[in-house]
């Protein structure tokens, strides 16, 4: 158990270093970061910038410095806001996390009951309708869903605010948008993992000994179906954050996603790097937590 934990933590550190390398390369992939940051400046200004930010050093030593700075949370100052980039990202992070968690909660509330019902009453009307909805949901571009919801609820019926994040009612449309993006994914997984366990021997045994049908489903089957559900939700967390970036842009939600999109427009690369790095770190940590949970929940691994 300890050996396993040590191995996982080592792997975590290696992945973090890799994430840092990819983040570093955002600025360096074009070959000339100085002209990327100052597209309209004179050559003299660029030379000055290269010297001041160390772009004239060898790439390897630049990366080592970047890695060191990352560990201490220093991504440099935002050119636009003239504040530390990481502080800007952390200011916006709660908003993005709130949106993501609300959407995940909404998706779970829809996906778990409908998915279980679809698996138990296979080929019923609800099952068929939910399959159609899953296909539609997975084929809709998130930003378009958002605009259509905005068109109906905010422009046409004037029930909800068009954009922003100031009032509770402003949270509704972004949450639904990101939720409709997430729910089909979850529903598919809930349904298929329930289908996998529902006809296994131990479930049949439970039924045979007279346990009520809903108890069989909720306590015997769901417990075992939950493991893949948790794992896949963890794996999809990156996708969810990507969806959050788009949703934030549609509804002008002041989160990390908008910070990135604005940062790209303003050529504010320290902010872009800090934001991309922090979002990737969240994905890494969520997956690490899921991994550990998996080990904890799965007795086959725990005993070893």
């Amino acid at each position, binding site marked *: 158990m300890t050996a396993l934990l040590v191995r996982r933590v080592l*792997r975590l550190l*290696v*992945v973090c270093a*890799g*994430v840092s*390398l*990819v983040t570093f390369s*955002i*600025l360096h*992939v*074009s070959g000339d970061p100085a002209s*990327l940051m100052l597209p309209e400046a004179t050559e003299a200004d660029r030379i000055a910038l290269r010297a001041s930010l160390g772009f004239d050093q060898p790439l390897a030593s630049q990366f080592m410095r970047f890695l060191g700075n990352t560990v201490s949370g220093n991504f440099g100052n935002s050119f636009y806001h003239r504040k530390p980039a990481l502080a800007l990202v952390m200011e916006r992070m709660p908003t993005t996390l709130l949106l993501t968690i609300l959407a995940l909660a909404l998706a779970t509330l829809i996906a778990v009951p409908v998915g279980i019902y679809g698996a138990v009453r296979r080929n019923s009307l609800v099952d068929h309708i939910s399959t159609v909805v899953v*296909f*539609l949901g*997975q*084929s*809709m*571009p*998130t*930003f*378009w869903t958002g*605009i*259509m919801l*905005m*068109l109906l609820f905010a*422009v046409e019926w004037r029930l909800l605010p068009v954009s922003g994040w100031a009032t509770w009612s402003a949270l509704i449309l972004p949450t639904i948008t990101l939720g409709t993006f997430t729910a089909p994914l979850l529903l598919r997984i809930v349904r298929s993992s329930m289908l996998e366990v529902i006809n296994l021997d131990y479930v049949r045994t439970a039924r045979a000994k007279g346990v009520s049908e809903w108890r069989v489903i909720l306590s015997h089957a769901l417990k075992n179906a939950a493991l893949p559900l948790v794992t896949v939700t963890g*794996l999809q967390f*990156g*996708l969810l*954050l*990507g*969806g959050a*970036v*788009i949703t934030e*842009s*549609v509804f002008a939600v002041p989160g990390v996603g908008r910070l*990135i*999109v604005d940062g*790209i*427009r303003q050529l504010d*690369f320290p902010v*872009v790097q800090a934001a*991309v790095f922090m*979002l*990737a770190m969240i*994905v*890494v940590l969520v*997956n690490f937590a899921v991994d550990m949970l998996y080990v904890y929940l799965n007795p086959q691994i725990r005993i070893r």
Partner: protein
Amino acid sequence: MAIATLPSGTAVEAADARLARAGSRSWRKLARNPAALAGALILLVVVGAAIGADWIAPHDPAKQSLVRRFMPPAWSAGGSLTYLLGTDQVGRDILSRMIHGARISLTVGVAAVVVSLLVGVGLGLISGFVGGRIDMVIMTVVDVTLSFPQLLLALAFVAALGPSLTTVIVVLGLTGWERYTRVVRAEVLALREKDFIEAARAMGIGWARTLLRHVLPNTFSSIIVLSTLQVAQAILAEAALSFLGVGTGGTYPTWGQMISLGRNFVTVAWWLPTFPGLAILMTVLAINLVGDRLRDALDPRTV
């Protein structure tokens, strides 16, 4: 030499024959499913539109006209049959722009997936077959790639490299390969223990040949199924990049860009963002329907 090639040759032939039999049966299964058939028909229309855009489009997609601004679709009050789906903020015909937009979506979708496929399948084969340290390195790279939301990475890199068709294709390709690697690696690990691979190795066939002639063909059905889903994802990703303003660049219409521009006028002209979005929805839905059916059809457990 003759002894060495004979058994492996027959083994391959037998495998090919089996694949062909499964193939024709798969197609019949595919054709029996109305949803998949509808998907295939929609796809045919979209591909036709993309290829024949210059002849099919009723108007020049770039032609502007101030008198024809914000014309609603033909069936609304004030609409005209000449501009079936209406016109945009500078009087361009929406339908014509959508027909031309099919080109970008399909090109990016397919080309990006080809890039992913080449990189992902190659690394997956090596990772699974060679194993050891190389496997560990490749899987770490996969873990790192998985840590980033694909869209986020694509957004940052396209912005850094400068928006263009090639950039979008390469960046989407290089941020979406890891699923191929994981799938192919898993299959190779299972195949490696099979008797026919053992036999090939025992006969002294080189590892590269074993890999390409004996291992790779057995991963085809997974690759095909994954590819359809990946094309759908790539089309959605390209639209999202265009929407966020770092798309293919230039003035050639794309669906994502049309939605992005139309969104600013959503209060006065609902049709601007609505129709291009429907085009994306229909195309991606069609690919997903066909892909889903292909998975059922190619799954050896159901053959």
